[in-house]
């Protein structure tokens, strides 16, 4: 086990290649200035150590920095804004070795650094089956046909003229946490749970378009949704779902969808795994049977212990995870922490989240931050004072149907360990005496 940082709260060492020359100069200056200034007591060390640069106080206060004494940059210096240069660590990342071709791969959302429930558009996870394109919306069409009175074509002009709704929903890949069925495989919440995002989506209720085409909603029990990309992703959607809360969406977090997320048009199927949220949506066909497509026959099928594959596993059941602190992090000091995480259910609202610090022996009920919305992420938090002893942090969500997020052992007993998909087990983060947090399985 690694040694704890000797003086928690001080500037952390980072590899030099990561720092700019200015950063390195700043760091060296601070290190020089703080030399010889002893931390007075153990108490000061276990609380956040204030880097006192001189006997009279903190240089960050006593010496005015350049940004307080010089003129800043003008408006629109960056016409499309981007995060602070100090936030570059939080990026979408691939998991090495998961796939061999990056056009048929996954980039995970850095959940470890996000607040609230909304995923910034640029950090929404990516999953492409044959690469992404930036499609010219002027040439994009949506066709609805099959068991309809009239097969119809809509341009983006048409769709943006229609009455719209905006709703916040999570999207989770069915394979999220899929690497962890058998054993711990990845180090951080970005890789264990990062095929998960939550955005405000704007679009037209699919039911309105089906009405417009005169869809036969009795005989036409199933829809095929198809993308315009090379893979022409297809999935079957039950008519019951389509008439409930499915959207044909063009907006995401107040702007148009990003190309990686289906610009200019994607399906939003709340509560259902991401594969059904067909990107670059070009076609909806109404039919009387499921369509048995490649991505519901050869892929996205769950292998059970008896050797059978489950088809059409779609609903993302209730799940939660603590995002801070989480795997691959180190607590900087003893004392107070706001343990925080996210919970969600494909069957409705999250009703309650409990948190354990002793591996599931004892639980306390966490605060739910508002808003608490159906089929959306819900942020929870709970007070925790770390006394420096080892801990096993877990969260356990309960949804409005009363379903309680299961332990991995319970899922394995029914499904075995090879199903890849729909692992919604309770996650354990081990906190060591050093403050280091890692991903463990208890059973």
């Amino acid at each position, binding site marked *: 086990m690694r040694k704890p940082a000797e003086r928690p709260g001080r500037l952390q060492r980072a590899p030099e290649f990561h720092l700019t020359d200015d950063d390195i100069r700043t760091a060296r200056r601070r290190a020089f200035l703080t030399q010889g200034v002893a931390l007075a007591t153990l108490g000061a060390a276990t609380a956040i150590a204030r880097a006192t640069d001189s006997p009279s106080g903190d240089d960050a206060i006593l010496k005015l920095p350049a940004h307080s004494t010089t003129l800043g940059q003008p408006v629109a210096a960056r016409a499309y804004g981007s995060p602070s240069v100090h936030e570059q660590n939080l990026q979408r990342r691939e998991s*090495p070795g998961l796939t061999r071709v990056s056009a048929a791969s996954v980039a995970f959302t850095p959940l470890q650094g996000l607040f609230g429930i909304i995923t910034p558009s640029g950090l929404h996870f990516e999953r492409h089956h044959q690469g992404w394109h930036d499609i010219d919306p002027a040439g994009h069409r949506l066709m609805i046909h099959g068991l309809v009175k009239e097969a119809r074509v809509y341009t983006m002009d048409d769709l943006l003229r229609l009455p719209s709704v905006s709703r916040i929903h999570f999207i989770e890949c069915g394979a999220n946490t899929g690497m962890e069925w058998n054993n711990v495989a990845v180090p951080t919440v970005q890789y264990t749970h990062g095929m998960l995002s939550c955005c405000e989506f704007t679009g037209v209720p699919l039911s309105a378009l089906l009405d*417009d085409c005169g869809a036969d909603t009795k005989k036409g029990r199933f829809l095929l949704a198809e993308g315009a990309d090379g893979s022409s992703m297809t999935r079957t959607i039950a008519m019951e779902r389509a008439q409930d809360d499915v959207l044909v969406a063009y907006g995401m977090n107040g702007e148009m969808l990003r190309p990686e997320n289906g610009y200019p048009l994607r399906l939003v199927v709340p509560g259902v795994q991401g594969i059904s949220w067909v990107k670059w949506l070009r076609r909806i066909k109404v039919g009387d049977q499921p369509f048995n497509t490649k991505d519901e026959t050869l892929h996205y099928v769950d292998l059970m212990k008896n*050797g*059978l594959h489950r*088809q059409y596993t779609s609903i993302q059941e209730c799940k939660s995870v603590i995002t801070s602190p989480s795997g691959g992090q180190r607590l900087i000091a003893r004392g107070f922490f706001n343990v925080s995480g996210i919970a969600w259910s494909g069957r409705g609202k999250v009703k309650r989240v409990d948190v354990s610090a002793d*591996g599931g022996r004892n639980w306390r009920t966490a605060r739910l931050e508002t808003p608490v919305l159906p089929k959306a992420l819900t942020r929870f938090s709970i007070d925790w004072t770390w006394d420096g002893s080892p801990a096993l942090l877990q969260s356990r969500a309960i949804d409005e149907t009363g379903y309680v*997020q299961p332990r991995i052992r319970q899922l394995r007993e029914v499904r075995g360990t090879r199903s890849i998909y729909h692992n919604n087990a309770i996650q354990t983060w081990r906190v060591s005496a050093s403050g280091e947090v890692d991903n463990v399985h208890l059973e």
Partner: protein
Amino acid sequence: MSTWNRRALAAALVALALGAASSIAGAEGRSRFAGIGRAATPAEIDAWNIDVRKDFTGLPNGSGSVARGEEIWQAKCASCHGTFGESNEVFNPVIGGTTVDDVRTGIVKSLTTSELQRTTMMKLSSLATLWDYIRRAMPWNAPKSLSVDDVYAVSAYILNLADLVPASFVLSDANIRETEKLLPNRNGMTTAHGLWNVGGKPDVANTACMHNCETDLKIQSFIPEYARNAHGNLALQNREIGGTRGVDTADDAHSAAAAFATVAIGEPAAARARASGEPIALAATQGCLACHGIDRKLVGPGFREIAARYRNGGNGGNAASDALVSQLAGKIRNGTSGSWGPGSMPAQAQVSATNAESLARWIAAGAPSQ
């Protein structure tokens, strides 16, 4: 309800009643949304209506032989899937893991016992799905380019590779239903589960015990020391303010990062660009890395493999000569075939002449990291 709303509702109801049996002209009257959308033409529907359902609805008439399938396979499929569909280099294998007994039962026995990687043939339960898959999404870098007969032929060749049909076999719309009865996993699917409908019954029922609950406090699994850095340095993947920092995993002696250091995939594009300089970033943004590794073959040869060949070729050792740059830039823009086995690279018209030359110059110089 306001007068306006009432009038609109009445109009909509009348339109609905009138519109029930209307044709294209009438449809506008039926719609709530005047002037929005239009009828699809029969030719438009035909152009996009390519799905083939499990019961073969949507399957076009046609046929293709194993022999013809083998020709197409060698030219367009083998570079990813291997000569015999066995390759695990780029995608999971297509062929393998099935037995004669499976053909009899229709359930692949190795799925119950084996930890082997699943192949396409171990999972395949529907021939319509295979046909639809090839037609809509293959070849990998040129989807929807095969003719109907060629899709039949490639399907026939895959069935032959799986020892289900003889080399003389011809697959057609007339015999595809019978042929499906040979699939080793045709009875291997189930929809008996609670994850299809919102109201479905869950598999498991945990309880919300609060105190002195039964639990197992023994650690069964964790990331081994040698793999700490397998996902890169976690210190660089966490915010540098707040109650936590990312653990610095880069200084570990048993770093696994070296295993990925020269592989472009597996790292975020921005990090790739920062670490490796502009040409690799350009190769990423232009889509080259979908098929080419930096120093190893994916679908096509690695860039350094290309450099090595041309450096050793008839260019007098002058790897970065203008002639070579021009030659490689031409291959990028116009496509090429035959240089690296039977596979071909389609023309990459989206790459500008300037970018193609930059990429070619970088490749010719040995595809250096910096």
